[in-house]
């Protein structure tokens, strides 16, 4: 089962691997000796993987340091160094309580269309598999039929849904949700929220209010805010993370749609610049296609040779 998942992750990341690795191998083979041109090519390869300019510069700076330290002049070693540097970059502290040892509340936020509702379904499935009781809160009262979408999921998954009418105050839904979760001694309460562009100030304040409501009525329940990011997103992902983090405080990130041809590059930029941990990866359309993020595994699958 576990092996099956790794191979699935490998397959879903193989596109990533091709994009990042094929040109890297090429560059290594072509240049042989480390030179400014080689670095320039590396820079381009990383940027093409959505790593972004500043993080690419950072990675290269560290790589150059390492190369100097080890007194290497062949490009062959670079792959191993880069791997270590990336793992190091991606290793940041993960918030405690994520396994719901104690009662847990998850506030799921993000811009429109990143896959919040689907991720919530997958999270529910995960916690259910761990033997935890779950409750969903339909906090997206804005988008047409968003409540229905979550209702269908809650039926499929056999968990309770707390909902109001469309257009209702999401703060009120959140209040009912947290109260119900505490009264029923639910292990994990998951709050859906409406997708909102991080540039809409009033919608970001609405989110602050929702979080405040949950916090003030948490009854000691641990609250974690998870930001959902679409892996297809380019450099704007950074702006999204930054703004959501400033507004409500983000504890970790769920990266979705890794089953496409999207690369993992954006992940490096996010952890490097903002130090926020990546917690989950969405790797498919099925309800169990959610994977806890592991830096070493992730980078290994990035760097694994084609087989």
């Amino acid at each position, binding site marked *: 089962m576990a092996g099956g998942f790794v191979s699935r992750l490998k397959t879903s990341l193989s596109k990533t691997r091709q994009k990042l690795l094929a040109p890297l191998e090429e560059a290594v083979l072509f240049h042989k000796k480390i030179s400014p041109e080689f670095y320039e090519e590396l820079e381009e390869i990383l940027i093409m993987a959505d790593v972004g300019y500043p993080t690419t510069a950072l990675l290269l700076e560290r790589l150059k340091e390492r190369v100097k330290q080890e007194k290497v002049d062949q490009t062959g070693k670079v792959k191993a160094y880069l791997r270590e540097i990336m793992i190091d970059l991606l290793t940041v502290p993960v918030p405690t309580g994520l396994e719901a040892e104690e009662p847990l509340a998850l506030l799921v936020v993000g811009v429109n269309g*990143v896959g919040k509702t689907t991720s919530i379904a997958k999270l529910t499935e995960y916690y259910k598999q761990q033997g935890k009781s779950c409750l969903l809160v339909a906090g997206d009262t*804005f988008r*047409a*039929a968003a409540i229905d979408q979550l209702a269908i999921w809650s039926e499929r998954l056999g968990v309770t849904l707390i909902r109001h009418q469309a257009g209702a105050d999401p703060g009120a839904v959140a209040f009912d949700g947290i109260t119900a979760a505490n009264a029923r001694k639910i292990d994990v309460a998951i709050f859906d929220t409406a997708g909102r562009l991080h540039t809409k100030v009033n919608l970001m304040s609405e989110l602050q209010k929702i979080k405040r409501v949950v916090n003030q009525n948490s009854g000691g329940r641990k609250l974690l805010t998870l930001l959902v990011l679409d892996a297809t997103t*380019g450099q704007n992902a950074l702006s999204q993370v930054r703004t959501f983090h400033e507004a409500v405080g983000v504890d970790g990130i769920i990266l979705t749609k890794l*089953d496409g041809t999207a*690369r993992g590059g954006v992940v490096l930029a996010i952890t490097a610049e903002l130090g926020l941990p990546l917690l989950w990866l969405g790797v498919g359309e099925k309800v169990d296609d959610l994977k806890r993020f592991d830096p070493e595994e992730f980078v290994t699958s990035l760097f694994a040779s084609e087989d």
Partner: protein
Amino acid sequence: MVLSSLSEKLQETLRRLRSKGKLSEKDVEEALRQVKLALLEADVNFRVVKSFTDRVKARAVGQEVLNSLTPGQMVVKIVHQELTKLMGEQAEKLAVGDRTPYVYLLVGLQGAGKTTTVGKLGGLLKKQGRRPLLVAADVYRPAAAKQLQVLGEQLELPVYTGTEADPVAIARQAVARAEQTQRDVVLIDTAGRLHIDEELMAELAAIKQAVSPVEILLVVDAMTGQDAVTVAQGFHEKLGLTGLILTKLDSDTRGGAALSIREVTGCPIKLVGMGEKLDELEVFHPDRLASRILGMGDVLTLIEKAEASIQAEQAKNLMQKIQKDQFTLDDFLEQMRQVQKMGPLDQLFAMLPGMKPKHLQGLEFDEKSFKHLTAIIQSMTPEERRNPQIINASRRKRIARGSGRPVQEVNRLLNQFEQSKKMMKQLGKLGKGGLPRLPFM
């Protein structure tokens, strides 16, 4: 933080390029290296960036540098022109079928905003006097059909959801329904899918076969990264796209994906989504997006303004006048007009390289007071403008009445004028042959 450091770096490079005459290969290459980074930061695909900058280089080397520009600015100017050309010079309209009902098919990845866009497009067409039928052919995502129904209710447009679980059948039936109910355009919403999902792509091809749409529109999230090219190519190869709709452009994305897609598919961008409200779907303006992608709005505006405004000849005359102490209120007015042509002053100054916000503090550049000053000067006789010394108390009162401003303001203007004359004389001595100075600094 990231963006500003990049734009600073760019400006620095542009300043360094100082050679005169024709653009040398070295100038162009240095400036293009910065342009390349700017485009990559905007998520323009790397290969697209490369072929684009190669084209620009071929065009730019050897070009005469306009007098008012630095070589770096000249390169950016050419880049912008080429970028706009690439995006399509003007807005392209949606196709209209020879006979009704004709079909628009909307396709794209999950979460791009297809359903919302179908609703918005329906609203837009309705406003143009068309009678659209919305069709929910997304049978996979939970409550997708319901979502479209809700939008249809809000827009007072009929929505066809069908009874079958087969999107091809739904599409075919919807066209028949449109015929029966005299709807003239059919908008089909399809399920989000990955371009590498063979089965679902085949389904789209089958829908295309069944209803022969006049438009197959790819809905793309404007925040998409380097992958946009792969996605668009995937859809284009299997379906033959006719156009793009760019969504979520109301975010702070630079939107480079649009350029990549345009380059690899050749399809025009027809509409852009600018917000969550149902009327926030707009016609696409290539030049605006070109500036946004390049992310050098500041440099571009400055280039435009430098070209359009203050002419070198006039500036020379002005310097002479200042040095000979012949600067009159007419010149003062003329100067103000020149400056006003360049746009809001505080913005203008903010655009000057090296200008920091703190330099602008204490300088008041109020557009309204400009108008007042103009009115006051225009209420003076030509003689008074040439020779302000003759303006006595009764003349001041007349001018105040004529311009509708209080006498105090007339006094203040005359004082200011005397002061700036003195100041300019000093500056003129300092900057002989240099740049023309603005009278208000």
